[in-house]
């Protein structure tokens, strides 16, 4: 009888504490989540995880001298994941009430043929660690209060756009879009993890369209930051305007590149997107477990030119892909991917590690609560070499200089492709004239041994990466580097 009373009392307490969820994610959730995790384990699950998320986004757009839109968005939700053997069930919901959490767990269990223990049965709670609260440890609680007002942001964006208008010749349109994304997450899982974090990602993308007669040039610049509340007020209007004006000026009357095979020099910073797409994705355990990467069995082997060393990490202050913990509650790490051409590590989330045997690397990431976490990149870059950028360019007699890459993708056969936003011909070791319409095509296994020179000027750039667990914030980076030969699609 006493036990029944205790069970009822505990369930009431759990429900009551879950009702406090909107106050803050934290200790108030310990009791309800402990109870639910215990129920999940008692139902027969090997592992149960709750990922709770609250988010406040603000999108703003300034175009042609006017504020075009201001769009706030609030969301709240939970993702519940249950493992049993090699199977997993995942359920997401916007209902984070006690009943909502319980219903989501019940549904995830039912996918694996499991049912919640019957009412009144005593179930041992899961012992959670003391709350590991990165929001408190890293003093992030005050970020929202430090963020500028909508009016302040709009005023600065208008000034950036005005600078673009002034600098860019033959401008038909120009604009700047800004995003603030504040996210609070809490992870509780049946292995005892109980951790909370706050993230703040901000980015601004400026763009312009120039038209003269039948000539058109579309140019864009993006900046991004993690963890600096007043980042959007620090956007350098002159630098952005000058970069857009120069690129538009070069491209407006540029000829199309002739298709063919070229030696290529990739510029630093966003040039790193080629490594991200062509190699980084193939080092994620989501690819290893399906054997859709040519590198799945190459750990410890030479997969790239010995000039190449590459990292993926979540630790660099302010970089777009940085995080204190991943979306499975694991602290961020620095992971050596390739050392002097030798494959050293893969990027593994919990399930990927379980399926492939490679150790977890704090790389379990997801767009939001509606996606299950998967192994994803964070800040990924090729390390610096010994050459100067000038030496790398001078080493090419006739080739292509990819000063600014566009987006790209890689398929399950390892084929990749990238648009080149700004390309120049290299003739006689010198950069000569701009060309447009270039696309780089190749295979990951084919290009990695062909990266033969790395300069000493590593740079990084923010970006978005879309994959199996949605869109996440990443950084790409590299120094200037030379690729011996690559197929260039053009005219």
């Amino acid at each position, binding site marked *: 009888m006493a036990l029944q009373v205790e069970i009822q009392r505990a369930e009431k307490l759990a429900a009551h504490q879950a009702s406090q969820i909107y106050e803050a994610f934290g200790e108030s959730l310990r009791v309800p989540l402990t109870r639910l995790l215990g129920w999940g384990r008692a139902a027969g699950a090997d592992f149960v995880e709750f990922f709770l998320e609250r988010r406040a986004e603000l999108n703003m757009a300034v175009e042609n001298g006017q504020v075009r*839109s201001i769009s706030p968005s609030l969301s*709240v939700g939970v993702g519940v994941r249950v493992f049993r053997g090699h199977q997993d069930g995942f359920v*997401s919901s*916007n209902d984070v009430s006690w009943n909502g959490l319980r219903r989501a767990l019940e549904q995830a269990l039912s996918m694996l043929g499991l049912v919640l223990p019957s009412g009144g049965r005593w179930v041992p709670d899961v012992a959670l660690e003391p709350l590991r609260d990165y929001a408190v440890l890293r003093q992030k609680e005050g970020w929202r209060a430090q963020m500028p007002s909508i009016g302040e942001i709009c005023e600065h964006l208008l000034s950036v756009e005005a600078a673009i208008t002034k600098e860019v010749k033959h401008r038909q*349109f120009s604009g700047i879009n800004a995003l603030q994304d504040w996210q609070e997450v809490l992870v509780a899982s049946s292995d005892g993890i109980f951790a909370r974090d706050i993230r703040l990602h901000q980015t601004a993308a400026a763009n312009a369209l120039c038209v003269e007669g039948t000539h058109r040039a579309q140019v864009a610049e993006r900046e991004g930051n993690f963890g600096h509340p007043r980042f959007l007020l620090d956007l350098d209007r002159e630098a952005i305007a000058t970069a857009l004006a120069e690129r538009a000026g070069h491209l407006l009357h540029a000829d199309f590149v002739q*298709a063919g095979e070229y030696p290529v020099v990739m510029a630093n910073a966003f040039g790193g997107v080629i490594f991200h797409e062509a190699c980084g994705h193939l080092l994620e355990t989501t690819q290893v477990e399906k054997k859709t990467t040519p590198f799945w069995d190459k750990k410890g082997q030479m997969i790239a030119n010995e000039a190449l060393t590459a990292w993926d990490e979540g630790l660099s202050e302010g970089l777009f892909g940085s995080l204190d913990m991943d979306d499975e509650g694991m602290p961020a790490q620095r992971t050596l991917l390739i050392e002097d051409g030798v494959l050293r590590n893969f990027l593994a989330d919990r399930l990927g590690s379980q399926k492939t045997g490679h150790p977890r690397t704090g790389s379990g990431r997801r767009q939001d609560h509606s996606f299950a976490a998967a192994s994803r990149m964070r800040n990924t870059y090729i390390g610096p070499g010994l050459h100067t950028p000038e030496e790398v360019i001078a080493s090419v007699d006739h080739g292509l200089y990819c000063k600014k890459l566009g987006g790209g993708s890689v398929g399950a056969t390892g084929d990749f*492709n990238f648009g080149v936003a700004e390309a120049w011909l290299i003739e006689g070791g010198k950069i000569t004239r701009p060309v447009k319409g270039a696309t780089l*095509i190749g295979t990951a296994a084919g290009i990695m041994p062909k990266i033969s020179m790395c300069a000493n000027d590593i740079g990084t750039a923010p970006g978005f990466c879309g994959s199996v667990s949605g869109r996440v914030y990443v950084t790409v980076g590299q120094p200037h580097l030379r690729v011996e030969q690559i197929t260039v699609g053009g005219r």
Partner: protein
Amino acid sequence: MDRIEALLASVHRLAGSLDIKKYDLSGRVSEDISVSVQGGRVDQMSASDSIGVLVRVWHPSGAVGVASTSDISEGGLETALAMAREVSTQAPREDAPIFSPEATAALAEVEMPQALEPVTAGLLAETLLRVEQRVLSAHPAMQSIPYNGLSQQATTSFYLHSEGATRRQKAARCSLYLYPKAEEVGRRGRMGNAVRQAASFSGLDIDGCVEESVQKVLSHLDYEKIPSGRYVVVFSPSAILALLGAFSNLWNARHILDQKSLSRPEDIGKQIASPCLSLSDYPLHPYNIRMPLFDGEGTPTRKTAILSDGQLVSFLHCANTAMVMGQPLTGHAVVGARVSVDAHYLHLQRAQSATSALSLEAADDLVYVDKLTALHAGTQALQGSFSLPFDGWRYQHGERRSIEAATVAGDLLPMLQQIVHVGHEEKALPSGAAAEVWVEGLSIAGSES
């Protein structure tokens, strides 16, 4: 009172208590269930129950503030309304959205799917495991289906405004996609793909999806390089719909007014494409599973001709763009901080006046583009140019052979004029319906010059 009725009642009550006079609300409730498999095992089973609501509040000055939320508790809705009201004080007055004059007009009467078939994750998983087995046993070179999924989704879309409009529509969709990979010793891995959708699980063409994916991937096993040069290029229905979709600014009235388009308002009436091409948006096409009855502003959807015999005859509009340009509403509003425009279901047809007669079997040398990839990276939508990798075949004297790796490049506006033939047969796809389109003189870059 169901969940949506309760939500709408809450918003009315809260707007009253916040003294908000003019507002509207749109949103969607969705329930999904999906599975994927790998190597004879269930890879993942997932389900979601989601809701998204967008409220707009009109300031007495005419400016409109918006806020969206997935928190439909009283507190969450109140926060969203209050936030939208706050934003309305700083929002631009120019081009402010208006209520659609047709938000209370009668909707088309179409037969919609009834209650969703009860399908469990277990049934979906069993079905997909059998599908995987069939695909992998189709040929010794078949290795895996790296990307696959079988899902069912039920949605309810709704719209209301403070002057009495109330719209609501249920829809259901079941989808199967297969991207099998095959590889022969010493050769590159090759992939093919097939997708099917139906309003119900029992209506899903599983056999057709299996057959198409297998045939495609096997057809790519015997591949060769293609020399770079200019070719006649035939776009498959899915390829041409994807390409046109990437350049949708051409008929998007919002983008045209914002000068973010290849078109200008005065282009209506111009011959911008070959006379053998006609294009419309046909939301209520019998093969469109979604069949939306109203757009984001509550305006009834309808068939809208965009190109007729190559002539640009209409843009797609929301209420504001139609008013500004003095053109009829078309029912294409997508509501957000700024109302934009999007097509529902493109329908590309051979013009009635077309007389061309070409066939793949009789062609001397052409390239068939079956599937375009990396459209986000390879199209410059405002520049009008594209350079895109593709899966496809080369036809020489009636024989076809897969192309190892290549890109197709061109400029959209000249390309539309270079269309020499539109096929007679149309294929209905999840994104639209189209016939094959033949274009002269496009650049193909192969990996061998």
